[in-house]
């Protein structure tokens, strides 16, 4: 029998593409580092999404072309950007007022763990002794909703979706949707509902690699892109 650990999962860009479908037209969105950064490449045609960056920008555009980098124009990951029409700049306190005040509609973050009640633990691996918290705490509490985009299991094959987080928390009950390389899972603050599975995977197989109990939606289906 084929082991689930070796079974083919969805690539990162497909995970990003599935997340992109969730961004409403006209929304203000903050994208974290990793898979979330890739989401902006896949926003469906006809939709406009405005990106917010903690570095002090609304309406972030594409990365600068090589040779045309402006050292004064960076995103939160330190990458150089192009200037585009409609862009605006502000200071760090205002950047976080936009987040904390609920003006940013959606935040997409990576995570180490997500719990059954939507707790997020993404800023620190306990064995490192110190964590780079950055703006994660504020993004988790402030944004009107957090979508987590991540691999379903960690490097050792351990579930990243767990009954209760064992790593230091970033925010309590802030996650409303989890998109992984195996599944789309809704979180209502009380429990998790499996809505979609990767092609070739059954809900039971996804449950085996999940550390929390999943309610299986009656209309569970294959990943919809």
């Amino acid at each position, binding site marked *: 029998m084929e082991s689930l650990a070796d079974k083919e999962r969805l690539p990162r860009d497909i995970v990003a593409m599935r997340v992109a479908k969730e961004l409403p037209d006209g929304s203000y969105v903050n994208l974290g580092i990793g898979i979330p950064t890739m989401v902006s490449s896949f926003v469906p045609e006809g939709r406009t999404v405005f990106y917010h960056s903690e570095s*002090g920008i609304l309406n972030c555009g594409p990365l600068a072309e090589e040779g045309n980098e402006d050292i004064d124009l960076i995103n939160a990951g330190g990458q150089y950007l192009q200037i585009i029409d409609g862009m605006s700049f502000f200071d760090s306190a205002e950047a976080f007022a936009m987040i904390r005040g609920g003006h940013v509609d959606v935040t997409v973050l990576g995570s180490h763990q997500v719990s059954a009640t939507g707790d997020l633990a993404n800023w620190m691996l306990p064995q490192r002794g110190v964590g780079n918290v950055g*703006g994660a705490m504020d993004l988790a509490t402030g944004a009107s909703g957090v979508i987590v985009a991540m691999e379903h299991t960690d490097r050792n094959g351990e579930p990243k979706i767990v009954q209760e987080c064992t790593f230091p928390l970033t925010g309590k009950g802030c996650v409303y949707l989890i998109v992984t390389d195996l599944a789309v899972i809704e979180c209502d603050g009380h429990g998790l509902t499996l809505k979609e599975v990767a092609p070739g995977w059954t809900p039971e197989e996804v449950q085996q690699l999940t550390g929390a109990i999943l309610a299986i939606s009656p209309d569970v289906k294959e990943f919809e892109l």
Partner: protein
Amino acid sequence: MISVPDNPSTNGKLYPSGKDALEGISIGDTVLVAGFARCGIPQKLLQALSEIEVSELTLICQGAWVQESTDFTIADLVATGKIKKIISPMPFHPVYGGLVKKAWESGNLELEIVPQGVLAERLRAGGAGIGGVFLPSGAGTRFAEDKEKRLYDGREHVLEFALKADYALLRAEVADTLGNMVYQATSRNWNPTMAMAAGVTVAEVDTVHEPGGIDPELVITQAIFIDRLVLSD
């Protein structure tokens, strides 16, 4: 008696060198340093600070996670051994680590991690004469342990006290001799907030105009917050 430490006449705030502009900085002082990643770092002032006889400093900054660059950064300052502690949301690069991580691992540097938006609001409170603020950020996490909590709008908020420092090292593209300042894109970052929250504020600028050289509508940081200016080259 009201004391007015700086003469705000023409050139009153412009100092001849970084070292001169940092006069008075003392052992054990707390220093705010503006900048976000590689952007808007007051490099000349950091370098000047590294050449001054001072020690046991506490730095408050966004981070020191610049890797492989010819810039003079907070990491270079840490390497001089003058820094006792860094208060920051992201003291070193999560993957590349660098000099700050090494200093911390060898026990020569103390780190205090503060969420970025909490740091911004504590500094803003400090600069605006507010004793503290209740913030939802960090509620239910280890950052809320042993802190006073209140419910507002049905959500838990955590009391965070204001934060002020002895000095602030800032950077702007343009200033006038009174200290009004304008920034370039994301190099604005921590500058306006930090400019309000320190006893002595020192800004490194590329260009200095006479008063009237900056459209008043465009001023981002007002002269009242700036004590000393120095040209970046």
